[in-house]
């Protein structure tokens, strides 16, 4: 049989298997399904998307040219620009884009059932997220590795550059606030978890000193040692949690943990990079890559059953985890697993400086995002293997279900998801916690699901508590790394911006400027964290949508840049490739923003909630003070959302005007690519 016929048969088989798997996932009602159907449908979607859609984009839309030298080859300096093997770049890029987002978002969105999140993750990635990462990477490669902000300024105009700058600063601040809140909610009243996470700091410092003075440069070796020490810290945490005195020392309330994290964030961002940031970054990457691989194997090995229905009653917007209907809130809750504007920063950061052949941008940009999307599918599975009653007991805030176990269990059971106080106590004991109620934020629910999968693969129920705390450590470890690194990145951006106003503020070695800008960044995300901790609805209800909106608005900026470049390249007939996800994102984010600001339901609309609070008659002065603070927070959230939308409107209008000028012939289409230089790799390969 000729090879072409074999290929047709193979891809037909993939399409058929994918269709059957997806039918199993989508059409079963009222009965549990096996997670393997989800895995199969996802893998087939990715295979078809990569083979056909990304190839179409590569050949017809972007016209990738294997003979064109990349900046890694032309500007090779052994430091920033280094031609690197495509698989190595793929791994490097994936490690850079994978964070807590694809784990937390799908867990929160599971309140709608497993199906809405799954469909959005697959469709969003194949037609949106992968495309965005791929085109931005390629356009950055063709511009000597320029950043998204630089491309926005050059291709769209000064407004584009300014909006990209503000969007990035905003997203960093909101992200850090939400990420810190997730850690706080996971560690509150948990001496085991708090001890383990506290120990990661001296372990990281030890790794830094080991690398600097004992075995310079042996990063893999010290990461392995650090990993073993972290495992010992998890075991030590168990002992601490059972010790009468030590368990008290490591038991903290949410506000106390928030204050500690804010102080830590400020101190850590001022320490030398080699002492804390770099070694903990190595450690968290080591744990992250290993855990994701083991989780994938665990799911394939035990093939768990999903207990969450395809749709829950909360598709109407009355969900306890966060308020709002499927459209638009499912699509902003899940960002990183489907499409994330933050990825555009990575795709226009280090990665374009490592690509050795232009054709490899497809595998790195499109392919790594598919891998990230698969991580999100695993998070859906981890959330949905739990009984729905358990899921809602963990993720519902005290303001909705109350704090008493019996009341919470009765409320959740009344929704049609039976759970008893006894079940929850047994689960809490099994994972080594006093209680699992009101653990909003997604991390504890993901940890329970992951512990469930791991304990069925390795060690049985006896190791459930160890696996749970391993999962908490895994999430908290790289969230703390993000806090430290994000504060530094935000500080440098702020210094760059302020340097235009007063030169000394832009000097990154001037301590008054360092202290002031660090305080400004930490104070900003610390404020959001404090707001979340004090929120009776758990904080996630208002902050996660805010994060999702800002992340998707950044994706809107990236897609505006990509569409503008396609128009200028003379590829206007194919602009639907970036225009379709752009239109979708604009409709999702603008609807979500409008609803978050103006919706009449106080659980959704910031202003309606502020008005509801304003009508309350305070019982005493303390309550009056708390009310005025909550009202201010609601109005602040509304203003932040509004400002982001106005800025993105500005870049949208400027982009559309630019397209119109170019397409009508009033402006010459000039894309600022670096001129063609033939690659010497082609000569070496005889091409």
């Amino acid at each position: 049989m000729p090879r072409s016929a074999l290929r047709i048969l193979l891809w037909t088989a993939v399409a058929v298997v994918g269709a059957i798997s997806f039918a199993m996932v989508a059409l079963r009602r009222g009965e549990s399904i096996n997670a393997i159907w989800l895995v199969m449908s996802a893998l087939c979607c990715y295979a078809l998307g990569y083979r056909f859609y990304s190839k179409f984009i590569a050949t017809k839309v972007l016209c990738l040219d294997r003979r064109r030298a990349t900046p890694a080859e032309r500007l090779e300096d052994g430091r920033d620009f280094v031609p690197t093997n495509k698989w190595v770049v793929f791994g490097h890029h994936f490690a850079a884009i994978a964070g807590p987002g694809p784990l937390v978002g799908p867990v929160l969105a599971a309140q709608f059932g497993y199906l809405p999140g799954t469909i959005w993750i697959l469709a969003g990635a194949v037609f949106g997220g992968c495309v965005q990462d791929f085109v931005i990477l390629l356009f950055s490669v063709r511009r000597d590795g320029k950043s998204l902000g630089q491309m926005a300024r050059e291709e769209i105009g000064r407004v584009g550059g300014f909006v990209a700058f503000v969007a990035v600063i905003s997203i960093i601040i909101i992200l850090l606030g939400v990420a810190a809140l997730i850690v706080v909610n996971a560690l509150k009243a948990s001496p085991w978890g708090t001890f383990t996470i506290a120990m990661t700091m001296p372990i990281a410092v030890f790794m830094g000193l080991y690398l600097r003075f004992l075995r310079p440069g042996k990063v893999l070796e010290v990461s392995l040692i650090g990993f073993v020490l972290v495992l010992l810290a998890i075991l030590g945490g168990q002992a601490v949690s059972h010790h009468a005195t030590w368990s008290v020392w490591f038991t903290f309330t949410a506000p106390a943990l928030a204050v500690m994290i804010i102080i830590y964030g400020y101190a850590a961002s001022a320490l030398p990079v080699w002492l804390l940031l770099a070694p903990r970054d190595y450690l968290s990457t080591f744990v992250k890559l290993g855990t994701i691989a083991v989780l994938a194997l665990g799911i394939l090995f035990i093939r768990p059953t999903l207990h969450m229905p395809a749709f829950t009653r909360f598709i109407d917007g009355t969900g306890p985890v966060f308020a709002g209907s499927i459209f638009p809130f499912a699509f902003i809750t899940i960002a990183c697993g489907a499409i994330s504007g933050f990825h555009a920063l990575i795709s226009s950061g280090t990665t374009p400086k490592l690509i050795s052949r232009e054709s490899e941008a497809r595998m790195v940009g499109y392919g790594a995002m598919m891998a990230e999307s698969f991580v999100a599918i695993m998070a859906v599975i981890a959330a949905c293997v739990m009984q729905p009653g358990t899921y809602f007991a963990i993720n519902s805030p005290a303001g909705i279900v109350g704090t008493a176990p019996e009341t919470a269990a009765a409320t959740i059971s009344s929704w049609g998801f039976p759970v008893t106080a006894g079940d929850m106590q047994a689960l809490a004991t099994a994972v080594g916690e006093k209680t699992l109620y009101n653990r909003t934020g997604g991390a504890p629910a993901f940890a329970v699901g992951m512990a469930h999968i791991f304990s069925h693969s390795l060690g049985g129920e006896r190791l459930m508590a160890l696996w749970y705390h391993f999962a908490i450590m895994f999430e908290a470890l790289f969230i703390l790394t993000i806090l430290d690194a994000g504060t530094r990145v935000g500080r440098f951006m702020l210094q760059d911006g302020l340097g235009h106003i007063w030169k000394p503020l832009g000097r990154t070695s001037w301590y008054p400027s360092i202290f002031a800008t660090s305080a400004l960044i930490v104070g900003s995300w610390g404020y959001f964290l404090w707001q979340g901790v004090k929120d009776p609805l758990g904080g996630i209800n208002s902050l996660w949508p805010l994060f999702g909106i800002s992340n998707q608005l950044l994706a809107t900026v990236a897609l505006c840049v990509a569409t503008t470049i396609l128009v200028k390249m003379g590829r206007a007939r194919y602009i639907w490739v970036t225009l379709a996800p752009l239109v979708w994102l604009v409709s999702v984010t603008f609807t979500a923003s409008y609803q978050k600001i103006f919706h009449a339901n106080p659980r959704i609309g910031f202003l309606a909630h502020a008005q509801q609070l304003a009508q309350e008659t305070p019982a005493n002065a303390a309550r009056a003070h708390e009310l005025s603070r909550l009202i201010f927070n609601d109005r602040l959230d509304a203003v932040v959302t509004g400002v982001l939308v106005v800025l993105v409107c500005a870049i949208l209008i400027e982009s559309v005007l630019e397209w119109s000028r170019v397409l009508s012939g009033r402006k010459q289409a000039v894309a600022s690519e670096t001129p063609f230089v033939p690659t010497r790799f082609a000569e070496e390969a005889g091409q």
Partner: protein
Amino acid sequence: MKNEEVRMKNEELRMKNEGIRMKNSFRDRVSTGFALVLATLREIFDENAYARFLLLRQIEPSRAAYAAFLRENAYRRERRARCC
């Protein structure tokens, strides 16, 4: 150092990756896969960056060399965004 010289210095590192592609037997493919995973980890964990730093300056690994590498690398690492 000029681009051409840098290119020559890096050739040794690159040839390791290019050379292993030529092998075809199952055993060689397994070892190629293993080598790629190791190369990826070494890139992610900055061991390759340190090796390139030593090659560029033609110096032996030492505490002083690593301290110099950390100083040079700190600027880039501090500005490297971590994704959500």
